């Protein structure tokens, strides 16, 4: 393992990558000079992983090149990237559980004697030499099995693997997420040593503190493009955040109260297998937040209201009309829509187009006899796709190719096209990036303005507080309290969500 270091450097020029309709990277030009640590930052989905995967040969760029020492290199496979001197330390180390550290490190290139017999003596000599040279001799026993390693040791094994052969570029993908503070210090010392030896280090992390400790340069990606490259010595955290999100987040929740007095949804003492004694009212134009810990029965209540779970006792009235339980079709026709928690598993048809997914609950309005009027359907899907700003080249694209935020917008588009009176949104922003979140918040505000009664289930307290006119808190299948917008704070919601069981059952009875 001679980490012979010449004076190389890596660069990407005009790099673009599309996955179907989605542009993951767009015209990215960046340099990773030798002897420097270049930090790579950006929101989820900004394109960091895609860039790393192109460097390691896992993905092929749609356009542009990767250069090493100023020469274009073709990286068609991880093996080629490795041969070219590019290494990546993955976020989740890949460790073979039932073999020793030594075999893990040299997996694929084990020293052997004639007849393909493993040369154990040579293996031991090598691992000991390498451990000694890198200063890990005391923290890593080469005889330990892969399954016995701590997270930090697993990381070390990956690093040892990366340093076999001649490494010119080493990328660390969020290496510290499972490390303790001392381990982080040791890792940083190692990274600095590699840098001083002339390796071009790429360091991906979300942790501002680490970035400023370690990086010489900071490259920020946003929406697949380079938002800026800063000198770590001169940049501040605020600069980075601005580059990453490109907008002021404090405006995300600005929303007027438009609630009226007209009760649209009236839930009276509803009991199902999962929840008991639920009473709640939502008025036209009102946004009610439904908070609670996971397992409090919020999603189950939502499903029961949507007609998908049997209601054992109690009533649900929508504009005075009683909804029969167990009949989602009737509930939808009465004017209630549910965007469920798991959008991929419960809402979307991933292999169908945006058009198909949008029109599904309005087909009966779009059909003549039983034939779907195609042009009307296209217009409708286009209208809502435009209105919700679904980022896609065409409404004919398969939904599975969209990002999480855009998929959520398609789910919303479906219900908006139906023009419901009540809309229940279960975790509407889970797993989507900040930008799309802000858009979803805006959509929710717009819907309230149109007079729709909204029930928003969310586990993110700032979201509940920012959106809701009124917060209803559930715990263990019961409502434990209700807070107006002015009363609601994170602390009060949490104390209700974790309220004592006795108290909650009393409230359940009186409610």
């Amino acid at each position: 393992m001679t980490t012979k270091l010449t004076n190389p450097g890596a660069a990407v020029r005009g790099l673009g990558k599309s996955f179907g309709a989605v542009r993951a990277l767009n015209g990215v030009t960046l340099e990773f000079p030798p002897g420097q640590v270049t930090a790579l930052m950006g929101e989820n989905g900004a394109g960091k992983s895609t860039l790393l995967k192109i460097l390691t040969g896992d993905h092929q760029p749609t356009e542009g090149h990767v250069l090493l020492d100023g020469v274009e290199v073709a990286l068609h496979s991880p093996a080629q990237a490795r041969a070219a001197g590019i290494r990546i330390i993955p976020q989740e180390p890949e460790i073979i559980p039932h073999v020793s550290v030594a075999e893990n490190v040299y997996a694929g290139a084990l020293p052997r004697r004639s007849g393909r017999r493993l040369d154990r003596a040579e293996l031991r000599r090598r691992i000991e030499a390498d451990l000694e040279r890198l200063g890990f001799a005391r923290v890593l026993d080469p005889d330990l099995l892969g399954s016995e390693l701590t997270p930090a040791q697993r990381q070390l094994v990956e690093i040892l693997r990366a340093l076999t052969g001649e490494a010119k570029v080493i990328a660390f993908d969020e290496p510290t997420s499972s490390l303790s503070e001392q381990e982080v210090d040791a890792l940083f010392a190692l990274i600095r040593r590699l840098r001083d030896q002339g390796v071009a280090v790429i360091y991906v992390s979300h942790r501002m503190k680490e970035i400023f400790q370690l990086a010489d340069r900071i490259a920020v990606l946003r929406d697949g493009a380079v938002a800026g490259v800063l000198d770590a010595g001169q940049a501040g955290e605020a600069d980075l955040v601005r580059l990453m999100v490109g907008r002021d987040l404090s405006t995300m929740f600005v929303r007027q109260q438009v609630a009226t007095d007209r009760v649209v949804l009236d839930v009276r003492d509803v009991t199902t297998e999962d929840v008991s004694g639920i009473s709640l009212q939502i008025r036209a134009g009102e946004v009610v937040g439904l908070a609670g810990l996971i397992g409090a029965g919020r999603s189950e209540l939502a499903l029961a209201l949507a007609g998908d779970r049997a209601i054992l006792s109690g009533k649900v009235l929508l504009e005075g009309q009683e909804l029969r339980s167990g009949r989602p079709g009737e509930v939808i026709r009465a004017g209630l829509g549910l965007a469920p928690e798991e959008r991929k598993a419960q809402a979307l048809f991933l292999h169908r187009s945006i058009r198909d997914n949008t029109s599904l609950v309005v087909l009966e309005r779009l059909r003549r006899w039983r034939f779907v009027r195609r042009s009307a359907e296209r217009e409708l899907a286009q209208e809502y796709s435009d209105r919700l700003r679904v980022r896609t080249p065409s409404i004919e694209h398969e939904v599975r190719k969209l990002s999480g935020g855009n998929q959520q917008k398609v789910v919303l588009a479906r219900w908006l096209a139906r023009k419901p009176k009540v809309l229940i949104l279960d975790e509407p922003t889970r797993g989507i990036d900040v930008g799309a979140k802000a858009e979803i918040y805006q959509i929710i505000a717009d819907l309230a303005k149109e007079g729709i009664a909204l029930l928003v289930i969310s586990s993110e307290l700032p979201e509940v507080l920012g959106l809701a006119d009124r917060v209803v808190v559930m715990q263990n299948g019961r409502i434990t309290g209700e807070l107006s917008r002015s009363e609601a704070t994170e602390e009060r919601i949490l104390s209700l969500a974790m309220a004592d069981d006795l108290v909650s059952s009393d409230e359940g009875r009186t409610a």
Partner: protein
Amino acid sequence: MSTTTVSDTAPAVKSRGRAAELLASVGGQNLSLIVALAVVLTLFGSLNDNYLSWNNIQVIAEAATISGLLAVVQTVVIICGGLDISVGSQAGLASVVSAMAFTSAGANPMVGMAAAIGVGVVIGLLNGVIIVYGRVNATIATLAGLAAYKGVAQLISNGAAQGYVLNNSVFIFLSRGKIAALPVMVWLLIVVALAVHVLLKYTDIGRNIYAIGGNDTAARLAGININKYLISVYGLLGVVAAVAGILLTARTGSGQPTSGSEGLELQSITAAALGGCALKGGKGGIGGTLLAVALLGALENGLTVQGINSFWQNVAQGSLLVVAVVIQQRRSGERLVGLPG
């Protein structure tokens, strides 16, 4: 969401999108089927002059009609997320019933056909009810049907061919008649296939069928009455299987409890899979299935014309089913074990 990014990339994405859409309208799967069909026709055509004669083509088409009808409805069931391996037994039972009812009603073909279709409806709905309300896995439920319906057919016929129908003009018309140079049987397939195609592609019923197969939870939450659809789809299959049974009677001249209908389940499923139906449901179409039926028919006839042991045809069909599904899995991006993600 910087808008500049979107407008910059949109043209490039669009031109690729158009090319992809063009390919999609022909269908990559259909294209490869057409190529495979051309290869098979050329191969056997060059080996045997008679193979591509109009006469032999009609033989191929007629032979493929019965399995084609079943493949068409099998496609609907598979798109809906189900599977029916009792189709052959259903056709066999319908065949026996049609001939026996015909005979006992004093050679009345309408009674014979009505009885067969009635039995088809009942069996189809029964399959649907068992699957939906008995909560039995579709494969298991229809595997039971495969045995039971065949058994019923053998019981009522004593295991022998029943009646003789080719003294009746209606059955003669069905088996030998021609309209505009095409056999009546082939016309029947065309009409059924077209009707099912229109149902699937142009009606809300079809959309809902795709939705149920694509994601049943989402379909339920979208207000689709899944139970009603599943039972209806199996009912439709029962009717078409009965039509296939009647054609079987017309072709062979009598009601056949098993001969001619055994193996139809494999043929219909193979055709649907080759034609691009995802066996998980939610994907597929009649066009692809018909192409696959033509391919299988041409292959079978070619092997027969070449005098190749008919046992090889089973091997060929089994292999094709596996190949079709393997191709499908790879297309759908199922992760291969052992490769870096």
